[in-house]
Each structure stands twice: as C-alpha cells, then as structure tokens.
C-alpha cells in the first residue's frame, strides 16, 4: 500500500505528486494483473485516468487505458468507434454526471411529461449498456448522478416531480434496478461520494468552466479510488479477514488491568456506546463472508472474559481464531494466516497501538493497518478504505464463516486418527462434479479471480467468459462441490479443458484452499478423464505457469501420473497424459455424483 493512497488521503497531494507515486509503485516487485480499461467520459477524464492508474497499480492491477474524445461516451459505443473495438476493453467506465442530462423538467411540468423525460433519459443510457454488453461482453461501471449544486425551488426540488433533485433521484433508482438485473454491470455511486465529500466542494463550478471537469479536481482521487475498488473486487483482490486487537480497539480500557466490570462497552456511557457501535459494525462483516479473528496481547482467560461481557455484541463464537498471548503480533498473524490457509495480505490489521501497527507494516508491507486514532472515527477509518467492496454476494460468502469454523473442527478431528486415510474416510465426503451450470457461474468466475495458490495457469475469467466456455462444444467444463459431515464447502474446484483435434488441453485447474489435502483433486481428474475418454480422446495436456503464489502445485501433474514434456527458462511447464493404455481411478475417499 502506497502511503499517500491510504485513506483518509489528501486529494491535492496525490494530484501534485502523481508522477513520483507512479514511479514508486512501478518500482515495487509486484506481479501485475494486466487489464484494459476504457474510460468513456461525458466531461474531461485526463486526470481521472492518471489517478485511477495509481489506485489500480496499488491494488496489483496494471491498466492499459482507452479514453474517448471529449464528451463522446455515447457516440463511441452507439456508432462503433473503431479504436474502441480494436482496444477490446475488459472494463468500461462511463464517467457521466448531471451535466450530461439531456433535458430537465421545468417547474409546472405534468407528471406525464416528466415520466416521458425520465424514460427518454434512461433509455439513452440503457441502450448504450445493452450494446456494450452485447458487443464487448465486458464489465461496465457506470456513474449514477450527483445532486445539482443549486435548487431553483428549494426543498420542493426534492418533493415535486418537476424538481431536479426528484428527477435525478428517480433516475438513480432506475440505474440501480438495471444493476440488480444485469450481471457485470456496476454502479459507481457518485451520489453518495459527492454527499460524503461535500456537494458544494465536489461541484465547484470553477473546474467545469475552466477545464470541463464535472467534479472538483481535489475530489478526483475519491472518485478514482471508488472505481478502483469496484475493479479490484471484480478481479478477486478484496481483503478476506480482520485481525482485531481487543483493549481500546473493541472496548475502552484494558481488561487485564481495569477488570471486566470496568470496560467501556454498552449503552451506559457515551464512550461505551462508541465501542458498541464499532463492534456492531465489525460483526456485520460476517454477513459478507469476512472472517473475524483476534490478535491480542492478553492472557487468553482475560481476553475471553472481555468478549463474554454481557454488553459485548461480539462474542467468542463470532471469531474463527483468537490469539491471546504475549508473542509478537506479526508471528500471530503469520500463524492465523497459515492455519486458515490464507495469505497474510488477505487480512486487515485493526489495532489502536501505533507500535503494533508498525511491526505489522515492517513484516507485511501489503497488510493494511488503518490508523485507529479516535474511537468515534474507527468506523469511518475502516469504511472509507473499501477493503471488502461487494460486487457479488453469493451464498458461499455468507456461509464462509461457518466453513472456516468447520475447518477448525476438522483439524481437531485429524489429530485423533492413526493415519490420514482413516481421517479422510471419517469425513464422509460427498462431491458433486458436473459441467458448469447457470446456478454456479458467478461462483466459478469468482474462484478464477480469487484463487492464487492451487491454480495451475492462473487464468482469470469474467462470468461472461465462463458462460461462453460452458456453451462451446469444444470445451469440457467441470465444477466440483464438496460436502462432508461438518458441512457444505460449496463449489471449490474448477477444471476447464479445450479440445483441439485429438488432444484436450487443460486451460484452467484450480482448487480453493478450503479443501486442500482432501483428495478432491483425484475426484476431479477421475471425472475429467472419464469425460475425455467418452469423447474418444486419449491424450491430455496439462500446463503449469509459475506465479509468486502457486509454487505448491509446481509438481502437481507429476503426482497425477503426467509426464513432463518440456519446461522453458521461466519455469512454464507442459505435461502429457497418455490414456491409450487405460486409466486407474485415483479417488478412494469421496463419493461422487455427476
């Protein structure tokens, strides 16, 4: 995380120092995900592009940009701008504002007149979105509308149908409805952003009249961060977990010194209310599938007694891991990450103590350590960063907390068995391994973007791409869902094979870290081989492309009996499996339905 991009950031400072920030970001050793982003503006977009690049680089995404000519956002799409077609965007960001409204109602317009106007304005946009989806199959990010900075009728602007505030509010709702019913379409909520920033400052007319910017220059970093958050979320770069301190973070006071009865928590005091509201905020993240953990310098007995305080909204049950000891917090974070099979940088480290934050920063530069200074602003500090920006909300997200809890139970069970096979047997595993089905398309796309460790080729796909593979006759697609006696893990593995002549190439093979070492990979290859033979093919080729994170599957194909054909100087490997001499099933512990 670049220090100047860390919220609450100074917009003007970012604008002024963009060249240096860019240079510093590009100097860091990051394996970037390359994406093509088209910015289609209804106003100037030059600085928006510059600053959006910084935030995306900071998230590990290296953008290649296309910008339309000034104000040509609609024309570029509707009249097939050749440069845009050639560019083949992965993401289109439509930067429009209330300056782009074709026609506003005037006082006295009838409800019917305004309805017609509203419909016309909406159709202009929705026709463009439909065409984008059809022609490019790309992700679409669309600004909604900020309120006007003046009100002809005062408060009545909001309540009368002929008022501008009323008109834009209705239009925003229609935009939201489109988002609810169209996958791959996201609203960039500048209505909220401008309110949060201050509408008067956001809409400073100087920037429109001087430079044709629809928002004040100093507000551009907030806009760019918001767009970057949507993009990084789509490409699986959200954070996944909290590592939370206890004393003076989740409650006021030090439980070991002050005693449980003297902690500031609950409705009795104003400071107690602040911490209660913060606890509720943290707890709500469970609904998004964010994993809650504690790292506290405390005796475990004291830590638990604090969480068992009758006014504490968070209880020990809400956490997957509670590390309360006197070891360095960096070691505890490393351990939690290891035990949950997550990377340390998937965590957000929340601690009021600057010294503890510093240790984490030193050990894990990519772990965000928001500056928790005044308890009443804890929520804002975390919220403005957008660590957990939601772009899909799947059932799996909601159940993830349970899943990790079940994993912890499985690990306990493992310790009681003589050998690993006996343990696997005891799990009573049942897998569903089938071709991609509409029900799971979004989960499958999500997995291709989030999975880093067990991922042979790290091929990232949008949902639209997944749907295309599923429909194509020359692909064998498989998803694997795994259940055991502790619960349902959901869809955890994806394999994609492309048939070319007499050979099938495995373009994608991934598995979620939730189910490592459960023999799920054997069940997957068995089914893949069965379908391959069914098509009359006897040769499979597997590929391994090394990344910073997938070393664990370097020799994976060898374990499955593939023969290494060649390896280039960068470590890319090609494997071959010849089925002409038959195939022995590898899975022994999972019952499979297909």
């Amino acid at each position, binding site marked *: 995380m670049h220090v100047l991009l860390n919220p609450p950031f*100074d917009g*003007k*400072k970012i*604008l*002024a*120092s*963009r*060249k*240096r920030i860019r*240079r510093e970001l590009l100097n860091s050793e990051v394996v970037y995900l390359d994406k093509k982003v088209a910015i289609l503006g209804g106003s100037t977009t*030059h*600085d928006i592009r510059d600053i959006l690049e910084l935030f995306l680089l900071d998230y590990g995404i290296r953008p290649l940009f296309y910008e339309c000519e000034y104000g040509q956002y609609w024309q570029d799409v509707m009249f097939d701008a050749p440069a845009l077609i050639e560019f083949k965007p992965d993401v289109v960001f439509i930067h429009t504002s209330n300056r782009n409204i074709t026609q506003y109602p005037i006082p006295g317009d009838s409800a019917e007149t305004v309805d017609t106007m509203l419909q016309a304005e909406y159709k202009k946009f929705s026709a463009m979105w439909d065409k984008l989806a059809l022609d490019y199959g790309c992700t679409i990010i669309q600004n909604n509308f900020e309120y006007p900075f003046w009100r002809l009728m005062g408060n009545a602007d909001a309540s009368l149908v002929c008022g501008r505030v009323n008109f834009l509010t209705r239009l925003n709702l229609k935009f939201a409805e489109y988002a609810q019913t169209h996958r791959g379409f996201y609203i960039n909520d500048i209505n909220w952003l401008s309110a949060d920033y201050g509408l008067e400052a956001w809409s400073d007319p*100087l920037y429109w*009249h*001087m*430079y044709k910017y629809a928002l004040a*220059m*100093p507000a551009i970093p907030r806009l760019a961060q918001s767009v970057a958050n949507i993009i990084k979320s789509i490409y699986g770069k959200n954070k996944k977990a909290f590592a939370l301190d206890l004393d003076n973070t989740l409650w006021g006071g030090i439980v070991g010194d002050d005693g449980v009865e003297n902690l500031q928590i609950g409705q009795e005091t104003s400071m107690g209310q602040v911490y209660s509201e913060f606890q509720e905020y943290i707890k709500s993240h469970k609904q998004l599938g964010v994993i809650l953990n504690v790292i506290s310098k405390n005796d475990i007995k004291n830590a638990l007694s604090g969480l068992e305080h009758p006014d504490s909204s968070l209880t020990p049950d809400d956490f997957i891991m509670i590390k309360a000891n006197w070891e360095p917090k960096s070691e505890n974070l490393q351990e939690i990450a290891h035990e949950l099979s997550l990377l340390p940088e998937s965590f957000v480290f929340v601690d009021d103590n600057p010294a503890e934050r510093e240790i984490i920063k030193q050990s894990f530069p990519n772990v965000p350590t928001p500056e928790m200074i005044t308890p009443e602003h804890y929520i804002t500090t975390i919220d403005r960063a957008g660590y957990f920006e939601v772009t899909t909300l799947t059932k799996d997200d909601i159940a993830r907390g349970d899943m990790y809890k079940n994993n912890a139970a499985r690990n306990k069970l493992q310790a009681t068995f003589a050998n690993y096979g006996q343990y696997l047997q005891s799990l009573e595993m049942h897998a569903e391994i089938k071709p991609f089905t509409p029900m799971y398309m979004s989960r499958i796309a999500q997995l291709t973007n989030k999975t880093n460790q067990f991922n042979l080729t790290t091929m990232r796909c949008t949902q639209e791409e997944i749907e295309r593979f599923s429909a194509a006759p020359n692909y064998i697609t498989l998803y694997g869902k795994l259940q055991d006696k502790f619960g349902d893990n959901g869809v955890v593995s994806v394999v994609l094979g492309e048939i070319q002549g007499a050979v099938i190439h495995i373009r994608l093979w991934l598995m979620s870290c939730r189910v490592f070492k459960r023999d799920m990979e054997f069940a997957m290859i068995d089914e893949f081989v069965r379908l391959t033979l069914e098509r009359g093919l006897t040769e499979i080729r597997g590929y391994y492309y090394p990344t910073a994170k997938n070393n664990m599957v370097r020799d994976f194909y060898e374990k499955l009996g593939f023969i290494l054909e060649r390896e280039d100087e960068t470590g890319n490997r090609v494997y071959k499996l010849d089925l002409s001499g038959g195939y022995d099933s590898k899975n022994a512990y999972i019952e499979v339905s297909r």
Partner: protein
Amino acid sequence: MTREKIFELLNEVFCDVFDDETITVTEATTFSDIENWDSFSHITLIVAVEEAFDIEFSMIDVLDIKNIGEMVDIIEKEAR
C-alpha cells in the same frame, strides 16, 4: 512570507509536479519554459500551488497568470 521564501516553496512544488529535481523557477520563467509542460500539467500545477500555500485561485487569477512572477504576486496577496 517573503518573496524569496515563496519562490523556494514554489520551486519544490514544481519539482514535485514534474518529478524533476533540476527545475529552477525565476520571476521571468513562463510555463512554456518548463520541459514537459502542457495544459494538463498546468491544471495540476495550479491545484498543487493552492495546496502548498493553502490558498484558492479564482478563475480570473488562473486566466491571467502569464509567468511565475505574476503567480507569486497573487500568492503574496492571498497567503499569510
């Protein structure tokens, strides 16, 4: 703030915006004297100067500024 002090701080702003430590601005420097200057970096520069001196230029100011000396005149008037 003395005129000399303003120049010193202003020079830092220019170096930051153009990411070039070799820039030296004087009374007579015009924007087009600076390597890599264009209308977009001009806007960035205006915002950066506002930030550095905690002032706000009006539209008339921005339209009128022809060289660094004139910019410093306005800063001298606005900043305290």
